[in-house]
């Protein structure tokens, strides 16, 4: 059940209807059952894994909270080992096995196993790990009711691709639940429709161009095609993932849960540092709080800071997928962050003057788009080829076409992002006049109807992670 399909909206409508008609005491059971049903609709075989991880973390947290200091650490390590063990096996076993085979001079898949990656495992293990670490740190009480904890892990709006929510954020709403007020309901609906429009009318349109290019880069030689392919993917991944996040946040809001923002107009960033303050913010926050700071952050001198930055970004890259391309992508961003830090924090953390801002934003977008080549290309060789084409003098034959109307739509969305950056119109809409809200929603519905891709189903990119 993809978020952008009719069966999902029927499912959502039924869940909302039942949620608000059932007695309050039964609602968590409904949400848990709905979440498991949602997960099973993808592949029921992964439910035991989800349940196992739930039991491990639920038990570990209680043991950590009630144990003595030495035991607490032991239970934390056991809990983390459980999570990382499952994640490592399902996600990284074949990667490691292939590299091991390569080291021994054997064919690449000599030791590989037939493993299907369980949906959303990277997201829910990170969420579980943050929970037990928070319990260990004393920042979060262990949840005693197993149903409550199971719902935190399996809550369907964010189960498969985030946002990565912290336990205290979730349980604050859960234990002090209040029905969403009118403004929140309107905001929830707006976010769901906005996310749908981002996914279907923008991401899926750009996906067709990016796929056409990256499936056979050599068929489209020249700098122009390479940049078109890379920029198309940059736009696809933004609209795809931020669209998914908007929908997840919107649905949660309709159920009375307030999820943190995951994207804040990342392509308006004026530096790579600024970009990472705006892109996949819940992952950045997780990496900062549970990796970068525990590694020492910037507390142990310049060199250690760069090392920590680099390690965090390399592991962040690896989190996305078991491939050297993702590691390189992480390393590329780690390197850029380190470089910016070296050049001076003020320069890259403070907004530049208005005259310089467009240039800096465009440059940042170009630099980030270069990085996406590693993210999207099927192999390292493909990445090298695409990058070499991007810096060729010859522009090449214009055989990779971006429809002009799609360019206009992208420019319109850029204008909308600028307006949002300065006036926060999307935030104000639910509070503003009803006609303005209705007009915005109608425009979005038209975008979905008229330019949304419906003849093929293109899965959300982050579902594979």
């Amino acid at each position, binding site marked *: 059940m993809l978020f952008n399909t*009719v069966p999902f909206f029927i499912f959502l409508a039924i869940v909302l209807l039942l949620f608000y008609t059932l007695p309050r005491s039964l609602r968590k059971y409904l949400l848990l059952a709905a979440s498991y049903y949602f997960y099973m609709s993808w592949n029921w075989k992964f439910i035991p894994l989800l349940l196992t991880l739930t039991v491990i973390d639920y038990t570990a947290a209680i043991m950590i909270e009630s144990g003595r200091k030495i035991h607490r650490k032991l239970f934390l390590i056991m809990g983390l080992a459980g999570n990382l063990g499952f994640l490592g096996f399902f996600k990284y076993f074949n990667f490691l096995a292939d590299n091991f085979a390569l080291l021994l001079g054997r064919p690449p898949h000599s030791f590989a196993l037939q493993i299907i990656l369980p949906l959303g495992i990277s997201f829910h293990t990170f969420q579980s790990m943050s929970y037990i670490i928070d319990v260990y740190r004393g920042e979060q009480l262990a949840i005693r009711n197993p149903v409550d904890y199971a719902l935190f892990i399996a809550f369907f709006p964010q189960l498969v691709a985030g946002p990565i929510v912290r336990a205290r954020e979730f349980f604050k709403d859960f234990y002090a639940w209040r029905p969403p007020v*009118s403004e929140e*309901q*309107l905001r929830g*609906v707006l976010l769901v429709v906005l996310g749908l429009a981002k996914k279907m009318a923008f991401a899926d349109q750009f996906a067709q161009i990016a796929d056409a290019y990256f499936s056979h880069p050599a068929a489209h030689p020249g700098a122009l095609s390479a940049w078109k392919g890379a920029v198309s993917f940059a736009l696809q991944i933004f609209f795809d993932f931020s669209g998914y996040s908007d929908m997840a946040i919107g649905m949660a809001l309709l159920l009375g849960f307030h999820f943190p923002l995951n994207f804040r107009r990342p392509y308006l960033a004026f530096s790579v540092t600024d970009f990472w303050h705006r892109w996949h913010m819940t992952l950045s926050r997780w990496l900062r709080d549970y990796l970068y700071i525990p590694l020492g952050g910037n507390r142990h001198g310049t060199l250690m800071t760069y090392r920590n930055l680099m390690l965090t970004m390399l592991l962040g890259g690896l989190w996305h997928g078991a491939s050297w391309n993702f590691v390189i992508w992480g390393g590329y961003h780690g390197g850029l962050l380190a470089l910016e830090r070296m050049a001076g924090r003020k320069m890259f953390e403070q907004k530049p003057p208005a005259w310089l801002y467009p240039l800096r934003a465009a440059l940042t977008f170009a630099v980030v788009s270069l990085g996406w080549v590693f993210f999207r290309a099927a192999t390292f060789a493909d990445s090298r080829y695409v990058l070499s084409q991007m810096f060729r003098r010859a522009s090449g034959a214009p055989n990779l076409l971006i*429809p*002009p*109307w799609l360019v206009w739509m992208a420019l319109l969305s850029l204008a909308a992002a600028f307006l949002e950056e300065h006036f926060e119109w999307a935030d104000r809409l639910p509070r503003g006049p*009803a006609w303005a*809200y*209705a007009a915005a*929603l*109608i425009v979005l*519905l*038209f975008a979905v*109807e*008229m*330019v*949304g891709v*419906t003849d093929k189903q293109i899965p959300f990119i982050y579902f594979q992670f």
Partner: protein
Amino acid sequence: MRTAVILILTLAGFILVENLIFNTGVYPAIVDPDSTTGAMEMRLSNEMRRKAGDRNQVLAIGDSRMGFFPRYPNQIPNLGYTSATIATPGTTPRCWYYMLREADPQANRYAAILIPFEDYDDLETWEDHADRVSDLHYLIPLLRWTDIVEFPRSYHSTELKFKAALGIALKGTVYKTDFQDLLLHRKFRLEYAAQARRESHQWFYDFKDTDKNMAGVVIDWKARKLAAPPNISPGDVDTFKTQLLEPYPEHTGRRSAYLTYWLNRICDLYRGSATRLIIFRLPRGPYVRPDPPPFDPNSSVRKAARRPEVILDAEHDFDFLEKPELFKDPHHLNGPGQEQFSRALALRVRQLLGPPKAP
């Protein structure tokens, strides 16, 4: 409560604006004339704009096999009937019902409607015609909110039922590809659509087809083998093989049910009307297999023939046109074939209807 009111009004506003654009004549007027929708829309609007001088009008409907060109019968002196056509390639009996409902809402414009059939025995087809998604695209300008139950229900697949219902409620979902093409070629499209409105009548009515023919195919019916001369394309050879040498598809009654339903609906349009529905069998092809399909006394056309508004023409009236020299491919008459067929059909209609009525 405030949320519900705002959301209901928003949804109503969206549906209203959507219907104003797509459910009125606004968008169909600029739809791509070469698209399925455009092809049907052009023919239908030409016919609706055509000034009919009297009641002695004969309208032909059908698909691309309906090689009836009104210019030939309209040249026959003293025929007494004026011919017109809205036959559109790719359309099916389900489409014909909605096209006739639009072209003749009062069921009194024509003396006769000419309805072609490929056979009189509801021979099964490999394809399930009820699940032709293209029908939705052909018919989208003609479908109304009141069709939201019957039309979707006529599909067998649940997915297509849903698609059809959604298409009727929100026509933009069907016009989407055309709309995206319009965004790509705005100027060309608007000019082309305007040109089609002005000139497409001539395109269809004055169209002169090729003289290419299918002569030279040698068929060994016993050995089930076929040899074709090099001028016949491999695609046509394959079609001949399937059409002539393969066993008939197993009879399931699926096609019979489909034809019966839509033929009845067409008859219902003209119930009690003076218009006659003339059903006839098309020339089957340049070569005809020696084993005819099993005779079905209760086939859709034979059942329809029991209704007073229907005239069922003799099954073999146009067999004399089943010659390789008169076909351009395994299914379609060529230029000379179309001329002979048009004249012969018009004369047969004159016989069946009798003398024209006084204006």
